[in-house]
């Protein structure tokens, strides 16, 4: 019966949430990770380390394995081999998506996915950490500081005056920000951001860049992006993925003159500036 | 057990043959009067008297005897109520052509209710068949010689043994030789000489025909002589083992044929449901249309030719209706796959009622062509022809569909749209047209399946409903949008069902299969062969 109760508890109170331990300055470890879909190796012996508070950009041609990597970190895909650790202690391969989300890893999808029939505020409230407990689901009364948190984030993503509007009628860019805002509501340590500026106007891009930069430091941020201009505007460290492997790593200026990298991109047939 | 229908077909041939047999004989051709006299007695006679009369008729060497007895066995022998003339009716309609029984001259049409049929019952019928058959022992056609021996098996009389022995010496056909020896052994089995009886019992081991197994059983139980009983029992053991083996083979065959029916019902759905993501609740009704098309073709074509014509026709009819449905309703619902379920459900109601209003709610009788009726021997196993044909048909349809999807331009476009509608459009595929054609294809196959079903079950307004649930199960089990999946799923569900049936009974077997399906989907949430692409997102 108690088992049943614990199952009924939508939040799984019984899955303890331990604080992440990043004492060595590294927040995320991916080591010798390999995953293949019916024969094809999407990720091939990939190793990657994300520092605490670092803002890292990951670039690479289509099919380089960027999204698959995010799936692995967030528990959507289980790798065939390899280790994935959050801080020193937490083995992400042992956890499912909700628990991973709750220990402080937020993920933004390629396509902006906000809950369109709900208002901006409701979207943020939904994402609020701690909101997932069953009792909180039924007795949805916001405490003072929860309200403050929501409005803080609202300012941060610059949607203050849109709080009451339906997410569905927001502009494309605004949706992207709202989704980032939802991640922030989770009080995450690590943000995984997939193509945040796809289809944005230069102005929107600029604001997005600001937003992400402002997040770095207090959070670790991993951005997957094609747009080199945008990457240049935010990233100190850039990793190039190719065929599921790390091809090169370093400052963007250096990479852009790296013959291997150029070869890959030209080989991939995409014209990047 | 011999296939009756083949046997009947044989008899009619035999009639003509007897004519030839009797013609040359210059012997005083029994005058028509004697024959008429005998026949006249038939009218008032009760069944036992009729039996005696049949004997006498066979005795007469009148050229028409065989024809008349035949007509009698098939209850086509009549009296014209007022003229009390004895006639033979041709055909089964309300109005039939008649000919004089004795002279054979045609007498034109007559309304059946004005005729008095000379009644026969089963006993009489089998008597006549045996009598006629036994005459066929000398026939040139091995089919009829076989029939003759089998007729003898059904009522083995010692006095007939001599004729069989004579035949055995000259018989060329090996199968018939064996049968003859068995028949003779059967006579010995009831003989007085214990040694011969034991010998016979031994010889009869392994024969599965009831006509032989029956007496053997009796011998094993009741024979006065212990040795004979012993021999009979060992012989029986042999028979039983054979029966068991056959039993397993049979079950497997049943499973395959049930599976092939499921596949036929499902692959059309695998196209519309799988490739297009349309949950077509009217699929069953499209099969129904196919079945009705078969019935219609049989209205103006001889049964034997109707099916080959019905198949393409059914395909056409169902496909056209399908395209109409797609153009008229479904195309407004893309992106709302679950709504297609609701709309097509409405359509299925309409189609059902339409059929009820047009053809009446009564079932339609679809005849089975001769080349599909009866049984044939696959090695030692006797299987029903129509099931065999349907298995073959299923394979053919499947291959054709597969080729259509793999080898043709349309197939390519279909798969393209299934994978990525937007991209396909960008590549210049006219997806609207493709959708219409795909749906037409799926529906057409449903129609074709209907033709097959018309050979197995009711052709009526409810035909569709009885299969729709099963076909969805098959598609989902196999993995939406995967033809091979549907194939494997159909076969395995069919075989599983038939393997369970013997010990669990029909209903429980079906329930178990359903439960298994539910559990299986837990393990493989996207069926046997999951597929990517639009359909997978339904």
């Amino acid at each position, binding site marked *: 019966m108690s088992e049943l109760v614990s199952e009924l508890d*939508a939040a799984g109170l019984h899955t303890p949430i331990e604080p992440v331990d990043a004492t060595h300055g590294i927040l995320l470890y991916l080591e010798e990770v390999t995953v293949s879909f019916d024969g094809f190796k999407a990720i091939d012996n990939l190793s990657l380390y994300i520092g605490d508070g670092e803002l890292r950009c990951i670039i690479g041609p289509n099919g380089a394995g960027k999204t698959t990597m995010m799936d692995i970190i967030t528990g959507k895909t289980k790798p065939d081999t390899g280790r994935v650790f959050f801080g020193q202690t937490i083995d992400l391969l042992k956890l499912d998506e909700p628990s991973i989300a709750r220990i402080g890893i937020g993920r933004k999808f390629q396509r902006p996915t906000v809950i369109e029939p709900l208002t901006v505020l409701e979207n943020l409230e939904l994402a609020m950490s701690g909101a997932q407990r069953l009792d909180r689901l039924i007795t949805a009364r916001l405490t003072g500081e929860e309200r403050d948190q929501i409005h803080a984030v609202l300012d941060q993503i610059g949607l203050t005056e849109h709080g009451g509007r339906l997410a569905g009628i927001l502009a494309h860019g605004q949706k992207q920000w709202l989704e980032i805002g939802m991640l922030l509501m989770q009080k995450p340590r690590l943000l995984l951001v997939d193509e945040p500026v796809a289809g944005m106007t230069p102005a929107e891009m600029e604001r997005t860049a600001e937003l992400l930069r402002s997040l770095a430091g207090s959070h670790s941020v991993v951005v997957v992006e094609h747009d080199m201009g945008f990457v240049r505007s935010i990233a100190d460290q850039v990793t190039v993925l190719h065929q599921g492997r790390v091809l090169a790593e370093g400052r963007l200026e250096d990479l852009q003159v790296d013959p291997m990298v150029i070869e890959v991109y030209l080989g991939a047939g995409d014209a990047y500036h | 057990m011999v296939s009756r229908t083949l046997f009947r077909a044989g008899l009619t041939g035999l009639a003509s043959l007897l004519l030839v047999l009797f013609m040359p004989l210059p012997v005083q051709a029994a005058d028509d009067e004697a024959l008429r006299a005998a026949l006249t007695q038939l009218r008032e006679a009760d069944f036992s008297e009729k039996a005696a009369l049949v004997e006498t008729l066979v005795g007469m060497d009148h050229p028409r005897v065989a024809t008349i007895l035949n007509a009698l066995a098939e209850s086509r022998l009549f009296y014209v109520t007022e003229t009390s003339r004895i006639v033979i009716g041709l055909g089964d309609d309300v109005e039939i052509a008649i000919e004089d029984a004795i002279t054979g001259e045609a007498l034109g049409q007559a309304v059946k209710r004005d005729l008095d049929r000379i009644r026969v019952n089963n006993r009489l019928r089998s008597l006549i068949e045996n009598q006629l058959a036994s005459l066929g022992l000398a026939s040139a056609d091995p089919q009829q010689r076989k029939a003759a021996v089998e007729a003898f098996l059904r009522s083995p009389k010692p006095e007939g043994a001599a004729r069989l022995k004579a035949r055995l010496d000259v018989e060329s056909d090996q199968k018939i030789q064996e049968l003859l020896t068995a028949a003779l052994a059967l006579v010995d089995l009831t003989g007085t000489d214990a040694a011969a009886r034991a010998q016979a019992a031994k010889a009869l081991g392994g024969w599965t025909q009831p006509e032989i197994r029956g007496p053997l059983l009796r011998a094993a139980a009741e024979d006065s002589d212990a040795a004979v009983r012993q021999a009979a029992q060992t012989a029986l053991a042999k028979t039983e083992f054979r029966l068991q083996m056959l039993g397993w083979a049979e079950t497997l065959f049943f499973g395959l044929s049930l599976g092939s029916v499921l596949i036929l019902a499902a692959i059309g759905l695998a196209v519309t449901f799988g490739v297009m993501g349309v949950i077509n609740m009217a699929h069953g009704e499209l099969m129904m249309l196919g079945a009705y098309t078969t019935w219609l073709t049989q209205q103006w074509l001889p049964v034997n030719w109707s099916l080959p014509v019905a198949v393409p026709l059914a395909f056409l009819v169902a496909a056209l209706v399908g395209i109409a449905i797609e153009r008229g309703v479904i195309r407004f619902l893309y992106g709302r796959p679950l709504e297609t379920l609701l709309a097509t459900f409405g359509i299925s109601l309409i189609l059902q009622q339409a059929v009820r209003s047009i053809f009446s709610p009564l079932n339609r009788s679809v005849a089975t062509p001769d080349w599909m009726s009866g049984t044939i021997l696959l090695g030692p196993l006797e299987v029903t022809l129509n099931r065999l044909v349907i298995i073959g048909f299923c394979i053919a349809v499947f291959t054709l569909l597969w080729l259509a999807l793999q080898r043709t331009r349309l197939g390519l476009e279909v798969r393209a749209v299934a994978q990525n509608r937007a991209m396909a459009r960008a590549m210049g595929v006219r997806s609207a047209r493709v959708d219409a054609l795909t749906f037409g294809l799926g529906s057409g196959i449903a129609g074709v399946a209907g033709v097959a079903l018309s050979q197995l079950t009711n052709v009526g307004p409810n035909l569709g409903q009885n299969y729709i649930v099963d076909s969805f199960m098959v598609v989902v089990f196999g993995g939406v949008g995967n033809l091979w999946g549907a194939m494997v799923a159909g076969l395995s569900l069919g075989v599983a069902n038939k393997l369970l049936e013997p010990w669990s009974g029909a209903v429980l077997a079906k*329930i178990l299969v359903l439960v298994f399906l539910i559990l299986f989907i837990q393990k493989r949430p996207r069926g046997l062969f999951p597929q990517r692409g639009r359909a997978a997102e339904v």
Partner: protein
Amino acid sequence: MLLPHWLFSDRAGLVLLAVLAVLGVGVPILNLWVPPDHPLYLSAYTVTVLGKYLCYALLAVSIDLVWGYMGILTLGHAAFFALGGYCLGMYLMRQIGARGVYGDPVLPDFMVFLNWSELPWYWHGFDHFGFAMLMVLVIPGLLAFVFGWFAFRSRVSGVYLSIITQALTYALMLAFFRNEMGFGGNNGLTDFKDLLGFSLQADGTRVVLFILSALALAGGYLLCRWLVSTRMGRVLVAIRDSEDRARFLGYRVERVKALVFTLSAMLAGVAGALYVPQVGIINPGEFAPLNSIEAVIWVAVGGRGTLVGAVIGAVLVNYAKTWLTGALPEVWLFALGGLFVTVTVLLPYGLIGLLQRREKAA
């Protein structure tokens, strides 16, 4: 009048409740205290038919909760409806006692007839009304929970889920058809005499049952309305529109699903339990997959994801059926089928959607 905000804001709901109240009061008066020859008199026939509609409406509401809000198209909800019905039916059977055809004090007629020597274990306890009532909730709930728990955890979704829900109800139908099951086979449970000592033939009992149905519908509606107004409701919408998003926000999607699915099944069970004494028979036909599909269609016709729409749809479609099967028995299926097609094609948001469009236009 003090109303919680979630109800106050829901005007359609208020109207519905008002109508139910009117019915709950009006129908009994018109049936019991108006002389039969008076034009306003409601015959027992009308009362039972209306009662039936209300039960169907409750079933529709329960479906709308899982389909409209959580996005699970269930094609097996009739199973829970029927199970609830059987639970009460078993109680009613036990109430017959020795008044059966064969006059056996314990065994129902069909068991005597199949020469069963004693009551199968699963029939015990159903002679207590309380127990039966409990089972009306527990049996459908339990089945739904176990089924949902496994299905959702292994992430069965979309048509696969729809089809196995269909498989579930289909299997149950076949099972209940078997006489060996001990539920009366094809004839099901019938020839009921009385409920808690009140004769089911009496107008009074009918009226009470009708009022209970009205109350149950109102209660069911309020429960669902309240639920979807809580944060839970918004989670359901999130799950419907983007399951992954909900998951990456840290929600245990499969648990929420299982929970709501179970709740909905219980509502369906109650509907079934109220349905049986009013129509006077429960048999395996109620499990037929087609029934489930039809119930889903009521919701679609009214407008999914609105709860009120489900009620309107259920009442309207069934009223249409009652009327058409009498008015044009030969061709009513054309009308019904046509209705389904036009609504799904022309009114993606159902009648409610139509009304809302009117509003906007006005």
